[in-house]
């Protein structure tokens, strides 16, 4: 029958597509071992020889809009590196799904970006999809300068497979309206009791002195964010506390967190924190503070929005901000938690292994995107910087000695910088940038300086869970975190008593938390982290 043969044809077609997809994956898996050996035999190639033209593809995620696929910035890169560069820049929210589909479709690009702690990186590296980088990194200025202890987090079976995307070691920490403190004659708080008193005073005593009851203490949004930890002891995301068996436990179920939740519950009752925090997104939470309603929020040395700050200064020109120093914890410790050291990972496709020239060219490209330009070199006199920002007059203009991007800088893809998969400058640990230099508003400079001085004069806790991967955490972590956040939000709002804390912890452990703790502690032991480490 005609139909039957058609059906047969159809099934064969499906089967063959499936086979092609599978076989491509397998071949990717077989490559790495053969590649290792060749890397050793061919090291006499000059890594910076540009005579051969290569085609390099890549994909990564980005917050914000992807740039166009044809542009002056891309042309500059192709010309400089003698490559045919084809980066796919995918909106962050869709990245996991789209990149999985692309890889399953058999087209893994030469360079693959991951968000921090993406389990797929470790999984695929184990399956041999990526190239071990140990033998190559030392040729490159920035990549070779990244300390080994940071690369440790990207090792699988002892080999480096990933390149970290830089992130601030300094966390976001609480800040307070200094002008409000001064108006009410209050001192900088040094413990949660005093902080509570300040928040309540901000609510009841008209700190902006406009005669209206229109202010309150702490701006906070959904997922109890920011978490207002005043040190690692209270940090929900740090593994600081230990259980009876000596295992580290996540901050979210610790004694410190319980104390903090009680603190919030007290504030909620008195109206000294955002009432509808449970449904407020991050932008709205920012708006609570930057519209002059709340007096306590968080700030960081990098990534602050001057537009928001400008808006607040228009409403209240006298506004001043200052960071709150860490509180002394019941166990005597004092200090915030250090950042994890990376905000993303970049890996190279294993099928490049036979082509040493292409490996070097790809790494040169990656290395260039991460190059750090100190303040005195961010001008057209530095040809590398000028190139990176798309040449003066096209990509940027100098105003008061500072480079300022033109408005269509990224939407029209004017500069190479936009197209590097990892275009975050890797600040070397020996350089001492003043973060305030990046801002123009005096109030912002003061705040950033106060934060940086505070971090530099104190200690930061090194979170033992950094770079430790737990399969259960990947599997259930997000749901579990959401669950416990919701329950803790109920405790704050008085719908569940804080005295029920031990039951909540028990629930957390039963729903997979216990497995996560075991797995993470195994990882912590493997890197010989025993006592609390500070830096």
């Amino acid at each position, binding site marked *: 029958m*005609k139909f039957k043969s058609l059906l047969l044809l159809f099934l064969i077609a499906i089967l063959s597509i499936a086979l092609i*997809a599978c076989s491509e994956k397998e071949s990717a898996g077989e490559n790495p071992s053969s590649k290792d050996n060749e890397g050793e035999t061919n090291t006499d190639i000059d890594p910076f020889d540009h005579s051969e033209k290569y085609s390099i593809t890549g994909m990564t995620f980005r917050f914000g*809009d992807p740039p166009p696929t044809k542009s002056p910035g891309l042309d500059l890169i192709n010309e400089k590196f003698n490559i045919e560069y084809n980066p796919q820049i995918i909106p962050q929210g*869709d990245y996991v799904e789209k990149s999985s589909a692309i890889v399953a479709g058999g087209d893994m690009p030469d360079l693959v970006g991951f968000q921090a702690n993406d389990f797929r990186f470790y999984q695929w590296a184990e399956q041999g999809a990526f190239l071990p980088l140990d033998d190559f990194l030392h040729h490159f200025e920035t990549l070779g300068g990244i300390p080994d202890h940071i690369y440790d987090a990207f090792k699988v079976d002892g080999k480096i497979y990933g390149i970290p995307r830089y992130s601030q070691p300094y966390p976001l920490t609480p800040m307070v309206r200094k002008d409000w403190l001064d108006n009410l004659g209050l001192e900088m708080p040094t413990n949660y009791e005093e902080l509570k008193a300040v928040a309540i005073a901000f609510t009841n005593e008209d700190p902006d002195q406009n005669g209206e009851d229109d202010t309150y203490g702490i701006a906070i949004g959904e997922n109890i964010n*920011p978490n207002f930890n005043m040190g690692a002891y209270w940090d929900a995301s740090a593994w600081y506390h230990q259980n009876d068996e000596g295992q580290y436990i996540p901050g979210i179920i610790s004694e410190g967190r319980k104390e903090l939740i009680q603190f919030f519950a007290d504030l909620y009752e008195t109206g000294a924190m955002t009432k509808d925090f449970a449904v407020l997104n*991050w932008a709205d939470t920012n708006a609570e503070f930057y519209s002059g309603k709340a007096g306590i929020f968080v700030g960081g040395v990098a990534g602050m929005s001057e537009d928001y700050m400008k808006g607040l200064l228009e409403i209240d020109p006298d506004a001043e901000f200052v960071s709150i120093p860490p509180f002394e914890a019941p166990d005597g410790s004092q200090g915030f938690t250090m950042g994890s050291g990376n905000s993303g990972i970049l890996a190279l496709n294993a099928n490049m292994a036979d082509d040493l020239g292409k490996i070097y060219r790809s790494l040169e490209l990656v290395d260039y995107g991460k190059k750090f330009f100190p303040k005195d070199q961010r001008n057209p006199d530095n040809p590398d910087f000028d190139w990176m920002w798309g040449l003066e007059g096209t990509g940027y203009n100098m105003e008061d000695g500072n480079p300022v991007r033109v408005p269509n800088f990224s939407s029209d893809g004017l500069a190479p910088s936009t197209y590097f998969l990892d275009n975050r400058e890797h600040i070397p640990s020996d350089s001492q940038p003043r973060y305030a230099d990046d801002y123009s508003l005096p109030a912002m400079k003061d705040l950033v300086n106060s934060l940086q001085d505070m971090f530099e004069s104190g200690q930061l806790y090194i979170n033992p869970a950094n770079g430790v991967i737990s399969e259960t955490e990947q599997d259930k972590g997000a749901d579990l975190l959401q669950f416990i956040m919701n329950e803790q939000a109920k405790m704050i709002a008085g719908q569940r008593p804080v005295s029920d804390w031990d039951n909540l912890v028990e629930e957390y452990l039963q729903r997979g938390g216990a497995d996560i703790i075991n797995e993470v502690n195994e990882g912590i032991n493997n890197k010989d982290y025993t006592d609390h480490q500070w830096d």
Partner: protein
Amino acid sequence: MAKRSTGSKVFDTLNSFLLLLVAAVMIFPFLYVFSVSFSSVSDFLENDIILWPKEWVTDAYEYILGSKAFIRSLFVTVYVTVVGTAVNLFFTSTMGYALTRNVTGQRTILFLVLFTLLFSAGMIPTYIVVKETFLINTLWALILPIAISPFNLIVMRQFFLSIPEELKEAALIDGANEIQIFSKIILPLSKPALAAFGLFYAVGHWNNYFAGVLYLNDPAKWPIQVILRQIVIVNEPNAALGGHEMSLEALPPPETIQMAAILLATLPILLVYPFLQKHFAKGVMLGSVKG
């Protein structure tokens, strides 16, 4: 007219009141979006807008209508919707009609159609099909993979079955062939069905966003929904769940712009409804009653 009892009057009043309340609940979000989109950012931040802008400002619209990406994506969506709906209607009606005739293997084909209705392939297999047919990064990727909706096909076939066989026989006697019967007899009789399914398909195309994200690599080809999502949601990092990687950069544009974008992206397809409402209501009942 018979005199109505007091109870009936009370019931009617109460009913009207309740329905008005329900209507208000439905209209309120639209009104809010509308008001915010015409307000200034500072009015919005001070929470002064509830139902009506304090001061009419068109900044948000100027910003959006001045954005090349937004306008371009609107055209892309109109194109995909128009071409896509035409393709949908063509294939759904022709296949639906063919399946009412005595075609060899008709039952098997119907079974296959039903099968896809019950078990659909996941994202990755579909992606591979689209890729192997070289549709990646073309607008056809938004049209061809969903050229026929099995559900609509079956309902359409049911509708064709309800057209009396005698009409076709009469045309046959007059010397018409199958194509003529279909185009001259069946299609004109099926206008309400076509309008209803056209609307279903068009709304589907208009609102389709994930296919755009998945299959189109070039942002210049993105449909409006993807751009809209970029404006409204994507820029918001899920801060707390990201632990220390919380970022203060890449904050979304002000709410006024978000609201204006929402309104501009929704309005065109919303305007189609009143004109097709009549057919639409009819379409929902299609195939339910045979007669």
